[in-house]
C-alpha cells in the first residue's frame, strides 16, 4: 500500500470519530501550549537580559585590564622582601580584589600572583598586541563641582581628545567633543542633567538617580531632551580642589587658578576660599544616554574632561590614605584600561595573551556564556513542567487509539483478510497518531503564541503601569523557530510513542476472531 493511501486511510479514520479525535487533539494542544508558553517565557527573559547587550557589539569587543592598586603593590613588595613568610599582608586589599579567573590557580598559592602595573609603558605594550584596536586608560575620580550655584559631588572621567575610535563619545545629544587636548572644556552626560535638574536635595541618595541595568527609556521626548541639553551648552562647571597646605606646586596641573575671593556665589563662603582652588570648565557637549542595558552605568560618570587634565585632577584629589599608599608603593599606574578588540572572536585569545603578560583582564563574553548556561537549565525546567501536560495528553492518545481499535476490530480483520499486512495495519495507526500530534502540535504552538500575546498585552498594560512610568513596550516572551518546530516535532514523537502499544495490538488482531461474529 502506498504511503499516501495510508495517510488517506488514517485521515478518514480520524474524521469518522471527529469528537473523539478533537478531544484528543485538544489534550495535545494544551500540552504543547503549556510547553511553548513556559519556554517562550524563559527565552523572553533571557532575551531581555541579553538582547540589548548583544545588540551592542562594542560591549563584547572590550576587555577590561586592571592595575594592581597601591595595596596590592605593597603586598607584592612584602612578599618579595619576606619570601619565607607564607603570607605577608593577608588582610590587605590585594587578597580582596583577587583575580577571579582561575588560570593562575593551577598550583595553590596562599598569596595572589604578582600583578603588573598598568602604566603608560604597559598601555603601549597592550596597544602593540595583534588585533587590538586601541587601549584607553580608564579612570574616574570624584570631585566637588559647582554648577548654577549649587555644589555637589560628581564623578569625572577623562576622555582622549581623539575620539574616532571610541564609540562612547559618538552619540551627542547636543554640542560636540573637546576642541583641543588642552581646552578647558567638559562634556557632560545626560545623567548629570537629570541629576542637577531634579528637585531633590543635592548630595541626595545616589540610588534614586535614573539609570541602572534595566533603564527605562526616558519619559521625555527626544526633542525635549535635546532642547534641555542645548540649554546647558556654554554654561560653566567649576571643579573644586583642595589647596595643597604644604605648598605643593599648583602649576603642576597647568591650570590657571581662579581668584576665589572674587567669587560672589553665596553658598561658597569666601573665608574658606583660601583653602581650595577652582577650575572653570565650559560645557561643550552633552552625551546621549544609552537606551536599555548600558554598560557605562557601572561607571556612574557624570562628565568627562580631557584625559591629561583628568589625570592631574585625580592625582590632586587623592585621599590621604591613597597618598600614603602611593608614597609607600610608588606609582601604581592606572586603575584600569579598556582594550578594544577589532574582532569579537579574538577577545578570548587576546584576553589570555594579556593575562600571560601579567595583567588581570576581564571581558564580558564568559559572563554571557554563564547566563546562557543558567537559562538553559531554567528553560529545560520550564519545558519539563510543560511536558508533564503533554505526557497526560499522550495517555489520552493511547486511550483514543485503543478505543478506536476496539471499534474497528472487524474492519482490521477485513483488511487483513483481503491482503493487508500487519505492517500496513500498524502504519495506519502510527500515521493516525502522528496526525493527532501534528495537528495538536501546530495548534498548540498557535495557542501558546496566543497566550503569550495576551499575557504580554496584559503585563504591559497593567503591571508596568503600576510602576507609574510610561515605559516602552517590553516583550516578555520569545518563540524562536526552533521552539515552535521543536514543540511540534516533540508532540509528534510523543504521539508515536503513545501509539506503539495500540498499533501493535491492531497488528495482532486475529482476522478469524474479528470476522467470526456479526
Amino acid at each position: 500500500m502506498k504511503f499516501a493511501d495510508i495517510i488517506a486511510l488514517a485521515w478518514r479514520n480520524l474524521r469518522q470519530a471527529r469528537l473523539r479525535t478533537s478531544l484528543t487533539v485538544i489534550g495535545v494542544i494544551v500540552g504543547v501550549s503549556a510547553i511553548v508558553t513556559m519556554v517562550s517565557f524563559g527565552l523572553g527573559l533571557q532575551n531581555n537580559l541579553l538582547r540589548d547587550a548583544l545588540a551592542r557589539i562594542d560591549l563584547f569587543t572590550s576587555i577590561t585590564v586592571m592595575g594592581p592598586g597601591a595595596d596590592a603593590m605593597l603586598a607584592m613588595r612584602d612578599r618579595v622582601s619576606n619570601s619565607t613568610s607564607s603570607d605577608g599582608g593577608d588582610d590587605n586589599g590585594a587578597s580582596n580584589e583577587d583575580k577571579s579567573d582561575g588560570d593562575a590557580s593551577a598550583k595553590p598559592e596562599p598569596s595572589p600572583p604578582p600583578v603588573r602595573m598598568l602604566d603608560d609603558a604597559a598601555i603601549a605594550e597592550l596597544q602593540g598586541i595583534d588585533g587590538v584596536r586601541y587601549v584607553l586608560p580608564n579612570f574616574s575620580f570624584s570631585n566637588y563641582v559647582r554648577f548654577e550655584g549649587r555644589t555637589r559631588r560628581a564623578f569625572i572621567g577623562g576622555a582622549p581628545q581623539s575620539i574616532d575610535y571610541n564609540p562612547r563619545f559618538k552619540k551627542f545629544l547636543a554640542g560636540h567633543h573637546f576642541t583641543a587636548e588642552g581646552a578647558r572644556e567638559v562634556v557632560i552626560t545626560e545623567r548629570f542633567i537629570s541629576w542637577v535638574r531634579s528637585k531633590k536635595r543635592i548630595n541626595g541618595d545616589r540610588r534614586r538617580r535614573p539609570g541602572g541595568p534595566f533603564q527605562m527609556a526616558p519619559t521625555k521626548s527626544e526633542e525635549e531632551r535635546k532642547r534641555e541639553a542645548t540649554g546647558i551648552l556654554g554654561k560653566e562647571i567649576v571643579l573644586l580642589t583642595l589647596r595643597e597646605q604644604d605648598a605643593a606646586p599648583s602649576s603642576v596641573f597647568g591650570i590657571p587658578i581662579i581668584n576665589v575671593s572674587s567669587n560672589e556665589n553665596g553658598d561658597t563662603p569666601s573665608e574658606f576660599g583660601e583653602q581650595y582652588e577652582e577650575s572653570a570648565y565650559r560645557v561643550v557637549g552633552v552625551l546621549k544616554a544609552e537606551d536599555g542595558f548600558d554598560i557605562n552605568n557601572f561607571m556612574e560618570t557624570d562628565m568627562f574632561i580631557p584625559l591629561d587634565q583628568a589625570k592631574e585632577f585625580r592625582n590632586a584629589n587623592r585621599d590621604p590614605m591613597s597618598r600614603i599608599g602611593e608614597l609607600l608603593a610608588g606609582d601604581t599606574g592606572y586603575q584600569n584600561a579598556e582594550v578594544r578588540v577589532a574582532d569579537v572572536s579574538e577577545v578570548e585569545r587576546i584576553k589570555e595573551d594579556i593575562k600571560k603578560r601579567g595583567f588581570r583582564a576581564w571581558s564580558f563574553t564568559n559572563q554571557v556564556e554563564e547566563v546562557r548556561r543558567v537559562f538553559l537549565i531554567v528553560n529545560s525546567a520550564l519545558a519539563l513542567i510543560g511536558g508533564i501536560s503533554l505526557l497526560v495528553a499522550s495517555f489520552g492518545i493511547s486511550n483514543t487509539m485503543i478505543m478506536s481499535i476496539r471499534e474497528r476490530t472487524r474492519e482490521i480483520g477485513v483488511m487483513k483478510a483481503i491482503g493487508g499486512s500487519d505492517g500496513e495495519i500498524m502504519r495506519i495507526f502510527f500515521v493516525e497518531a502522528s496526525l493527532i500530534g501534528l495537528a495538536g502540535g501546530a495548534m498548540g504552538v498557535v495557542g501558546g503564541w496566543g497566550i503569550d500575546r495576551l499575557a504580554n498585552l496584559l503585563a504591559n498594560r497593567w503591571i508596568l503601569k503600576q510602576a507609574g512610568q510610561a515605559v516602552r513596550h517590553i516583550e516578555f516572551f520569545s518563540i524562536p523557530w526552533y521552539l515552535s518546530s521543536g514543540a511540534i516535532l516533540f508532540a509528534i514523537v510523543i504521539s508515536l510513542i503513545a501509539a506503539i502499544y495500540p498499533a501493535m495490538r491492531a497488528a495482532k488482531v486475529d482476522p478469524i476472531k474479528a470476522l467470526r461474529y456479526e
Partner: protein
Amino acid sequence: MKAETVRALAEVSVAVEPSEFIAILGTSGSGKSTLLNLFGGLDRPTSGEILFDGKSLAPLSSWEMSRYRLSRVGMIFQSFNLIPTMTARENVSLALAFAGLSKSDRRRQSLDLLDRVGLSKRADHHPSELSGGEQQRVSIARAIANEPQVLLADEPTGNLDSSRAAEVMGVLDEMRRRDGKTIVLVTHDQELADQFATRVIRLKDGRVVGSG
C-alpha cells in the same frame, strides 16, 4: 495449474483442481469454516500442510502470507464484511490499494470490477444503501479485485433470501465458467451444493465422510 492439495483438520486430505466448483458440505462445527480459513491463509495448521500451486504455505512469513491473501485467493463471507463507512467502490478500491495501485488505476479498475458483478450503477452507495444480494456482489467484486485464481466463499448466501441467493450463486458460477476461477464453497445447503458444485465434499467432525 497444478492441483491444490489440502491436508486439514483430522486427517483430511482434499485436492482441488483448477476451475473446479467444489462444495464443502457440513453441519455447523463440522470444521468446514476452519478448512476454508486454512485455504485462505487466515490460519495455519498445527500439523500437516497446505500446498498452493504445489508449494507449501508453511514457510511463508506473515508478510508473504498477506500477499498470498491479496493476490492468490479471494474470500467471500456470509456477513459480506464490507466496511460500512466506505462506498461500494471504495470497498473494492481498498483491495487494490493494498496491491499498491495508483489512485487513477483504482478508480478505473474498481468500476470495471463492479461492472462485472452488475453493480456499476451502485458504485457510490454505501453498504447500508444496498440490498444483501448487492452487498454480497460487491464483496465478490472485492474478492476478484487482484485477479486471484481461487475464490473461497463461506456461506455466501446464508444471509440472503432464495432469489438473492440464486443471483449471487449465479455470479460465482459465471466467474468459474467465464474466467476459469476455482470456487470453493462452504455451505450447509445440500440443494445449493447439488445445483452448482462440480464436486461435493462432506465433512463431519473434522473428517471427510463423503466425496463426489
